[in-house]
């Protein structure tokens, strides 16, 4: 049945999903999981938790397909669900963290929860942030691009990379920080060009 569908057409995938096709819904998940994961990862640092929350998001979406009326794009609708799922998670984590002794984790959790609570009106922007990031990655110098590829996309650790390059681990960390700063500026510029804020 999937072969007869246009797997790139969200409308068609949506229609088939509403009729109960899990294969069609898998197509939607393929198209939107990177955006949903990226959104969740802005506010949740535990990557296993991000995976679970992304699963929650899509399961909730599947069960709520009947209520989606197309007033916003499918991506924005999914990110709206992801935001609610993430909010429940971070609030629960905040309660747990109140007993923790890790002061930095506790403070980070507090600040990220605040940021997420204020994020409700900017979901459209958030849907575009990932696209901006993808474009900005293409503009990175070769060396920076290789560093990002190895660390984030191939899962190498800073320790391994430091050993290979004959550098200190802290130097790798600082290089990554600078690359992210460059990417942050690039994203802000791109978002400003399209009239939205990062």
């Amino acid at each position, binding site marked *: 049945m999937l072969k007869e569908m246009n797997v790139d057409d969200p409308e068609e995938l949506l229609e088939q999903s509403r009729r109960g096709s899990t294969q069609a819904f898998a197509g939607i998940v393929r198209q939107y999981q990177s955006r949903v994961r990226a959104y969740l990862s802005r506010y949740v640092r535990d990557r296993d938790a991000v995976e679970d929350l992304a699963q929650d998001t899509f399961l909730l979406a599947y069960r709520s397909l009947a209520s989606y009326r197309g007033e916003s794009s499918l991506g924005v609708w999914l990110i709206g669900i992801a935001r609610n799922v993430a909010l429940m*998670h971070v609030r629960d984590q905040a309660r747990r963290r109140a007993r923790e002794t890790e002061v930095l984790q506790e403070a980070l959790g507090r600040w990220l929860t605040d940021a997420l609570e204020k994020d409700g009106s900017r979901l459209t922007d958030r849907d575009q942030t990932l696209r901006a990031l993808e474009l900005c990655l293409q503009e990175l110098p070769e060396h920076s691009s290789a560093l990002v590829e190895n660390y984030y996309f191939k899962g190498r650790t800073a320790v391994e990379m430091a050993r290979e390059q004959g550098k200190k681990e802290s130097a790798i960390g600082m290089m990554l920080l600078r690359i992210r700063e460059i990417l942050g500026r690039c994203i802000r510029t791109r978002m400003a060009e399209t009239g939205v804020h990062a």
Partner: protein
Amino acid sequence: MSPEEIRDLWSRFLAGEELSPEAQRSLVDAFEADPEVRESLLENLQLDGMLHAMGDTRRQGEAFVRNLTDCLGAEHDATRFVKKVESRLNENPPPPSAPPGTRRKQKDTTRLFRRRSAGSTSGDSAWKPALIAAAAFVAILLLVVAEIKSPPPKPVVKAPPAPPRVPSAPESTGTAVTVTREQRLEELKVEETRLRNEPRAPEEKPEDRQKKLIANEDERRAIEADLAKGIRPSSAPAPRDPKPETTTTTAVVPTILPTLVERVAGNVYLARNAGDKRRAKKDDSVPVTWNVETPGAASVALIRFSDATWVEVLPNSVFRETAAPTESSGRKVFLTSGSLESQITKQSADRPMVFTTPAGEATILGTTIRLTVSHDPKTGTILEVKEGKVLLTRLLDRKSVEVVTGQFAVAAAGAEMAPQKSFPDEVLVKFGPADVQLKPGWVLDSGEEFDAKRGYGWIGPKNGDPVPGLFWRDGNGKLLPKNKGRMAVRRVNTPGIDPLKTTDITAGWAGQTETWYMPIPNGRYLVSVCVGDITYEQGPHHVWVEGIQIINEKKNRVGESIEVKDVLLEVKDGELTMRVGGNTGSRVSADGSTDSCINYLLIKRVRK
């Protein structure tokens, strides 16, 4: 704290370094003192998360989709089952004593297939699977009770061995009993449900129950296949009125399969990501989606499924069943990390068992395999087939290869997927010239450069340039120049001397090390090494295998070899690597040579 110090600490924190409480406090104070700095570095943290998410999507995106689709598929199956149960209950209301709330809402069933991480509390609670399973079990019991209490419908399907009577069958005469295939199918389904759910009697062994279940399933599937093809036995009566006349349930319960822990060694845990974790013991039931974890080099768990398929979860592994078999799909399992071995009972052709890892997917109808997930994404997933035929699919691009008996294949980004001959349990690499008489289980290495077809060899050309001022003496006492690279040497040809020690490869004459390697499956191995020149005092010799120095500055005297046996080591990168030589400075031998002479390398695989 200066802005540079703040950034330095922050970059180290994001790179995974553990900061001291003082450093953490300093960072928090700095952030609270300057909202702009905080804003900027939080943006940096969010980008860090987004980039990690992009990487995770690349690496695990397809596995994520499949896991989710499995959940939804299972939800459909479970929903159909619940509907059937509800329908049956409506036809045969439960007795007044039935407890309220035994029927489940449809949406809860998906939770049976979920995995949860620590602290994740959104949506329904994580304890529901057990409750739902219990409720489904109660529902089935109610069905049975309802059937017992309700007036017997006609005709009644009785449990075997007493076969039911078929009133309309014209062939029935006297006491002879004929059973239609449809009726037998119904009986088998009832029996299957009973076998899956009814507690065992104390005298009944788990394996007896499993055998009955397998026999029952085999017969049911055979009948279903015949009916689907329209095949009827020649003596069978014609199909009857399609209107159902029996009162038996047709459900196959998808989630309450008795998957059992059959054996544990070391530290074995049953855990789910919500944080529930308990030590596993023999005969424990393993719920679907719960991880079986075997941390530690001596930890092993043997898991047996209801169809007698077994999975041995090897040390330092995380394994789980993601979906139990249903009417429409086979069992699905996931190996998150580590290795497993499995013997898979013959599966139905349209419902194969599927083993998935972060990088690959093995679709199996019945065979014995070994599956390894490497720590290194470049190495990915290694599938070895001991017997049978398996379709291995790389999730990244859905490329597939068939792997047959005695082969292994790798599913990893950028790696060649072509199946290769499996590594045997034991191999002896004999170093020496081409005329060495090999024995079974030996392979010859004459110092040649690595060749993929041969499957092992050295890095760099065999014959390098001569090293000025360095000579060696052959078996006839003749002086020859020493070259960089490697030389295969026969020291003597005297009968009675262990042939393992009469030839060698000498390497590392110019102070450098020479590197030999062989691609082999990841895992643990016992390695033995022998060095020396029985005709001449040589050394000190140096040999490292997988970075472990096995021969350390030892010299051999005339007539003597140095053997170090059974060093346990672990291969994690898909290659066993050996370095030979490396003498410099004060470690150079008395005659000025720096080489080491390796006679043989014995590699024995450690299965458990």
